[in-house]
């Protein structure tokens, strides 16, 4: 009796709709549905139908484009700029972040300025870079670096502070040499924060980069979407926006998730460290008064 009622439940259509996977798959369907409704409701000359945008994207993927570089060249160039700029950010940010984490004086010296750069819109750097460096790769690369640096600093500093004090004390009292202490103590506890910094700094750097490409470049993904905007091709702007989304998801899922999985195989809970998105207040470690 019990088995007879249990079996058909799995085929129940209501249960199927309620499954999480279907919910996730339903989202794009709903978006396209609403989009189509708006398209027919608006009857605008500019607003494109989903089919028109899809057609544009398909042509771009097949290398048939009206622009001067195709979608692969465009995103490859942006990717190279992003990596170069972010490499600079990681090096500079790690050095300053380590110094700030290890010394209170250095921390006091830089703190307010790091906080200010963190809050500065990338748009400002982008417009400024366009005027100073003209159109080229230098401006976008430097803007990427400048937007990424404070994120790396703040997270690396937090990682140094997060290093367990007792372990340091113990290592000191057992006379462990400094380089071994760095290798076995500082680095492992720093690593999760470092990866969090890289991941979020990367996405911040990317946002800065596309803006810089609009104002300080004549190539690259940001410039290209502005190009289609200037040409008043709404379908192309929306199509390119989808390429942006695909690109970001690609970086997240296939690059960072892989690196994460590899780097934290030995320590599964460490990959989930919370990223620091703003500079914490300068904390003076007060000696307790009895």
């Amino acid at each position, binding site marked *: 009796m019990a088995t007879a009622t249990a079996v058909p439940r799995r085929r129940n259509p209501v249960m199927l709709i309620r499954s999480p996977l279907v919910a996730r798959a339903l989202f794009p369907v709903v978006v396209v549905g609403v989009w189509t409704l708006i398209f027919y409701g608006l009857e605008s000359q500019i607003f494109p139908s989903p089919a028109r945008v899809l057609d544009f994207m398909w042509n771009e993927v097949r290398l048939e484009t009206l622009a001067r570089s195709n979608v692969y060249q465009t995103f490859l160039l942006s990717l190279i700029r992003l990596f170069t700029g972010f490499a600079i950010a990681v090096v500079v940010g790690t050095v300053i972040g380590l110094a700030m984490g290890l010394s209170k004086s250095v921390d*006091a010296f830089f*703190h307010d300025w790091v906080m200010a750069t963190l809050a500065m819109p990338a748009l400002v750097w982008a417009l400024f870079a366009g005027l100073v460096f003209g159109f080229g790769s230098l401006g976008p690369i430097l803007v990427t670096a400048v937007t990424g640096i404070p994120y790396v600093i703040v997270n690396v500093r937090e990682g140094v502070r997060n290093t367990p004090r007792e372990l340091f004390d113990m290592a000191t009292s057992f006379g462990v040499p400094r380089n071994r202490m760095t290798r076995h103590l500082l680095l492992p506890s720093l690593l999760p924060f470092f990866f969090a910094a890289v991941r979020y700094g990367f996405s911040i750097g990317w946002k800065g980069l596309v803006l810089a490409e609009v104002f300080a470049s004549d190539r690259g993904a940001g410039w290209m979407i502005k190009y289609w905007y200037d040409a008043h*091709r709404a379908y192309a702007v929306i199509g390119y*926006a989808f390429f942006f989304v695909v690109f*970001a998801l690609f970086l997240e899922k296939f690059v960072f998730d892989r690196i994460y999985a590899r780097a934290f195989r030995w320590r599964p809970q460490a990959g989930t460290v919370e990223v620091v998105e703003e500079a914490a207040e300068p904390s003076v470690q007060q000696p307790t008064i009895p």
Partner: protein
Amino acid sequence: MATTLEEQHLRAPSAEEQRLRAQQRRETQRRWFWRIAGYVTVLGVWELVSGWVLAESLLPGPTRIVRTFPEIVNSGRFFLSFGATLTRIGIGFGLAFIGGAVVGMLAQSRWFSNFFRDAVTIGLTSPGLIWALMGLVIWGFKPQGWIFAIFLATFAIVTVNVAEGIRALPKDLLDMAKAFGTPTLRRQREIVIPHLAPYLFTALRFGFSNGWKITVLTEVFSSNKGIGFEMRVSSQLFQLDVFFTWVLSFFVFALILEKLILQKAERRFFRWREDVSVA
């Protein structure tokens, strides 16, 4: 017992205590010394680079900006621009905050949290530029364009923070409420929303700090007033002193609003709750 406590309080500080106090004072002094040294160094380098490394017309120094500030205040467009930008932030981010919070609250249900998952990921990772240009190319200079852009660029930040609060919901209280047959709406009003209040505040702060940036960006492309518009005009006219003065005055304003007013309000608001750690 009470007398010993009082005695401890009244008797003169021991040598150890004095030593610790002095150490603490030195620590604070040293911190302030380095902090001021930081200000002097950065401002000094900036002042020197302007005029020596880069032309002063290209990178105006801090003194130049301080001198330009009264000019833009007296130009008559100062309050107009601030007002225009703040109106845009208020409308655009206001709607995004409501929308983001609703989506975050819906995440209590597994179904909805899966339904919106990709939307949130896209909202967090995509540059605001694409929404700004998309809104602009579809709606032109109409308000729908910039509302669309500000909404899509900021709602996900609110959603993520609210969803964070949802994950930390007091399950036992909710279970009890359900067991006693409390209606869903009342459960929301009396358990979920009070619990979420601090998270909503954090969402407001993070959202605002992103919201004003995207707002200024939409003004660069599609406005005839506001901070973004002034930035565009002055950079096109190559008046970088005016450009930096506009940027920095709004930047300082936004920082004061975010760090001093909102953060202080948050602390004040939740003083009575010990379990709330304000991020």
